């Protein structure tokens, strides 16, 4: 502690040398464009036309003017659903799989490798292949449902407003489940064996072991995965865009903030030109929401972490 305190002195050359390259590249090519976005959010600017200063007008428009506010809250709702459902079908299932694979299971390594594989795939490939799989007429999903006598469940998954968003969330989870799974698995493997042995000698059930030992001890990983999921789902764009297009078809039932932003900023292919100023306002709101929620989350969960 003493030595550390001693080190706290004016910034030295080597520190500058170490930090400056990353700082410059990051500031110039990430932060600066963002700050410009903040500035742009105060203008009405259709890109090719003049820039008109409107103050906070874009934000007022976003929250109070139809149809923008409807579309915004509709998209926000879908992002929240995206997050909640992903927590269950991706992270909870990933946790269960991690607990299973942490036990002595034959071929555990193979399962891990296979489950993680989609993480390495391009989203274009994933979205495209699953659109094919979910096709109502010849898609494999409906064929399987019919083959096992559940034909009544077969439906146009991506065309039905009740199922389209869920279908996309599942496809997204399909791609990313390997990530939480392996993060949790590594954390579980990091827990000293004595904890489990002691519990089992005491006759604790699997559920109890999971509930009172595994989960509390891997809480930091769970927090981390939750926040990453939150950031990821709030910024979801590619998967919706690839599978349902820029309008979040059918009729906005899969529209998320990402597609809403893209549409307002750049317009649709044939329609209105889009408004870069208004789009920037959407981007700013998205960023602030993610920032505030993640930060609060971290603050709260830090207090509950268990040390061992």
């Amino acid at each position: 502690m003493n030595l550390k305190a001693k080190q706290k002195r004016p910034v030295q050359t080597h520190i500058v040398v170490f930090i400056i390259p990353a700082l410059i590249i990051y500031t110039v090519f990430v932060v600066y464009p963002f700050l410009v976005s903040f500035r742009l959010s105060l203008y009405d600017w259709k890109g090719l036309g003049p820039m008109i200063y409107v103050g906070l007008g874009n934000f007022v428009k976003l929250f109070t003017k139809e149809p923008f506010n409807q579309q915004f809250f509709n998209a926000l709702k879908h992002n929240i659903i995206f997050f909640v459902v992903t927590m269950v079908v991706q992270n909870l299932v990933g946790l269960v799989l991690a607990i299973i694979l942490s036990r002595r299971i034959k071929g555990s390594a193979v399962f891990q490798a296979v489950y993680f594989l989609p993480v390495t795939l391009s989203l274009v490939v994933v979205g495209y292949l699953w659109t094919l799989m979910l096709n109502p007429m010849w898609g494999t999903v409906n064929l399987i449902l019919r083959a096992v006598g559940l034909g009544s469940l077969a439906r146009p998954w991506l065309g039905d407003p009740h199922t389209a968003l869920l279908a996309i969330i599942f496809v997204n989870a399909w791609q990313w489940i390997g990530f939480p799974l392996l993060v949790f698995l590594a954390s579980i493997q990091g827990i000293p064996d004595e904890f489990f042995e002691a519990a089992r000698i005491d006759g604790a059930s699997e559920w109890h072991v999971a509930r009172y030992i595994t989960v509390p001890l891997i809480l930091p990983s769970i927090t981390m995965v939750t926040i990453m999921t939150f950031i990821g789902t709030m910024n979801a764009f590619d998967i919706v865009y690839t599978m349902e297009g820029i309008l979040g078809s059918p009729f906005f039932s899969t529209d998320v903030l990402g597609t809403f932003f893209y549409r307002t900023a750049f317009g649709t292919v044939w329609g209105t030109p889009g408004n870069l100023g208004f789009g920037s306002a959407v981007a700013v709101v998205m960023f602030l929401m993610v920032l505030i929620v993640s930060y609060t989350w971290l603050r709260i969960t830090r207090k509950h972490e268990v040390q061992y």
Partner: protein
Amino acid sequence: MVNRSRVGSLGRIALYILLVAYGLTIVYPLFIMLCNSVKTGQEIFANPFSLPSSFAWDNYSYVWSVASFNAYLKNSVFVTVVSVFLVLVVSSSAAFALARYRFTGNTFLYLFFLSGLMLPIRLGIIPLFVLMKNLNLLDTYASLILTYTASAIPFAVFILTGFFKALPKELEYAARIDGCNEYRIYYQIMLPLVRPALATVAIFNFVQTWNDFFIPLVFISSDHLKTVPLGMTNFFGQYQTDWNYLFAGLTLATLPTLIMYLFMSKQFIKGLTAGAVKG
């Protein structure tokens, strides 16, 4: 106890069936992609899920040479390798400084870098484009490399700082007593110790950079500079799409990462999880 183990063995079988079934949902779509990549366009239309009746290898030769996939591949490799390398160099040194020295503004800088985790580059694309234009970098590899490097720095700094922090301080003190300067401590002593984290960062960014198509879409207009994912979009027409070439293209775009993954899945997984867990 007897009772429980019998249930256990039955449950075990059910469990394996479930695990294998889920594994199949992952392998099957890729298998379909592979099958369709050697069918003719007509056959894909007629039977999108069947095994190929004959092998139309010329899909690949078309995609490879006529659709200049070989050039795209070269571009992708170059851009990805250089970006990943740059990220490793600048982020590891920055993370080292942030983790090992106490100085005014340390926490601020750390949070400053971290806030980038929440900035999807897409949201800032317009100013970024104008910036590239002003720097005269549009339609160059540099525009891609700088953007990828910059957007990867937050994650890399986040992971690497965690790792550097976890290293025992004694190493550093010992080195300093031996007369090492700070650069050597970083390069010769500390850096080798965080290799797993470097692997994490490298692999993570490799996958992201390799698969990205948005950045080149906006910055690259010359065909000879396109990367693989962007080149792939050549196959999507306004109204018509050549499915056979598209599937061959998708397969070729997937293969490099897939092959690397098959050979180094341990490293991929180890690297990734190690980073996230420590974080």
